[in-house]
């Protein structure tokens, strides 16, 4: 569904992504793990068209379409179903919870589908229904993450890019978020997940990639990588 080949991205003069290649297959959860500054977020920003690569290809194939992510404008990428739930949640603080959800459905034309999905999202996160008229900026961190996820779901994702959904959240909330991610896979959403919490990510992921200073250094199934000595030492905090 997503095919990235020899991608090179610069930020200013810094070579942030170096010859990165990977695939994400339809219906899977793929995890991208690695330390801070390894280039994970930059990879996602490039895939959603906010950064342009210096070289390489990135192709998104939902259904029969084919979208060239290195040249398509971001609004076209969104309409094709590649939805990016960004790091730090980035909800619209000065808008109400309802308006934030409406922004998620901004590119959707089918109003029936939008109301159906809105109902589903509010069922998934009842707190959002309760706070519907309140300002999004007044939500707690966990609630903001639920809003960011709900907003992304309203965009009808076929491939969902999740950047650090667990960052700064309480363990119980993290569990809730990961439950939802698993539920999304059951509903057929393909997911590319960035996580600092490598244990949880590998536990959930079908495939995983380890990124170090801009390159993918290891890849394999989530279960395999969870047993890999190097991964255990560097990212799982366990003794080999």
């Amino acid at each position, binding site marked *: 569904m997503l095919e990235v080949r020899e991608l090179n991205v610069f930020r200013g003069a810094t070579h942030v992504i170096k010859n990165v290649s990977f695939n994400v297959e339809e219906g899977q959860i793929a995890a991208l793990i690695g330390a801070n500054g390894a280039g994970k977020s930059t990879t996602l920003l490039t895939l*959603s068209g906010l950064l342009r690569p210096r070289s390489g290809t990135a192709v998104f194939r939902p259904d029969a379409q084919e979208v060239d992510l290195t040249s398509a404008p971001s609004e076209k990428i969104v309409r094709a179903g590649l939805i990016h739930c960004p790091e730090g949640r980035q909800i*619209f603080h000065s*808008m109400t919870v309802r308006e934030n959800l409406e*922004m998620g459905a*901004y*590119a959707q034309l089918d109003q029936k589908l939008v109301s159906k999905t809105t109902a589903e999202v509010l069922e998934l996160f009842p707190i959002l229904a309760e706070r519907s008229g309140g300002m999004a900026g007044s939500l707690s961190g966990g609630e903001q993450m639920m809003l960011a996820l709900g*907003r992304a779901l309203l*965009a009808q994702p076929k491939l969902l890019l999740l950047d650090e959904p667990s960052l700064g959240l309480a363990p119980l909330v993290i569990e809730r978020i990961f439950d939802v991610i698993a539920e999304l896979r059951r509903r057929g959403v393909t997911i590319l997940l960035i996580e600092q919490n490598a244990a949880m990510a590998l536990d959930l992921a079908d495939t995983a990639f380890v990124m170090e200073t801009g390159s993918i250094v290891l890849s394999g199934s989530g279960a395999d990588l969870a047993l890999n000595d190097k991964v255990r030492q560097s990212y799982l905090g366990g003794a080999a």
Partner: protein
Amino acid sequence: MTQYVFQQVINGLALGSLYALLAIGFSMIYGIVRLINFAHGDLVMIGGFATLALVSAGVPWPVILVFVLCVGAMAGIAIETVVFRPMRGADQVTGFIATLAVSIAIQNSTLMALSGQPRNFSFPAFMRQRIDIAGSSASLTDLTIIGLTLLLIGGLFLIVYRTKMGQAMRATAENLTAARLMGVAVNRTIMTAFAIGSALAAVAGLFWGGKFGQIDPLMGFEPGLKAFVACVIGGVGSIGGAMLGGYILGLAEILFVGLLPQEYSGYRDTFVFLLLIVILLVRPSGLFIRQTEERA
């Protein structure tokens, strides 16, 4: 005395309407692209001369109003696409200097084309009559300006707070990256903000010419600066703040001239810019924005 004060208040509200129309556009554009647009005042002049041309052609006034809105919108779109779009992503100072360049270019090409000779047009004679309100009187021109301005601002608020495009504009103003990730076509949104802001500025030009009876190629400079002051008073980037800032400035300016002895009236601009300095010292983020919400 109360009658005199009442007249001064109406007068101040009329002037405030002009500042508000201008300040709102100024603020919208800043809010969405973080650009202090010093060419914004020149749209007043463009609106003034568009009105003059249409009046000379004998076009009826309601049609002129609509036309001037369109001319302003198109001028705004042209300036945005030709000058500001290619500079998107450049740093703020570069953008700021570019707006000064646009302003100077507009003023001087108009001077070359039309000469610096002031021109005039006036509203129809019946607009000059005075209407009695509760024992006092006010000019129909001022009342019309105030009424139409409130209508236009009401329409603007409907667009910004009740339409999908308005919601996209607010989203883009708050968080450009997130707006793009929602599928907002940012260039189109920015263009719309320029079109709306510039249309309002052009109508301010129509009102300005009708109220003061004279237009010239450099007329946009002073209202442009005053609109900037109004924005600072209200809090740059906030539409409601810009509107209130415009009215406060208009009222303050007129009451300063009207209530103090005559010999001070020449200092009205001094007063306005003193007000700017005081606001910048005391409440740099504006009267209507809480300090914590201050924008970067």
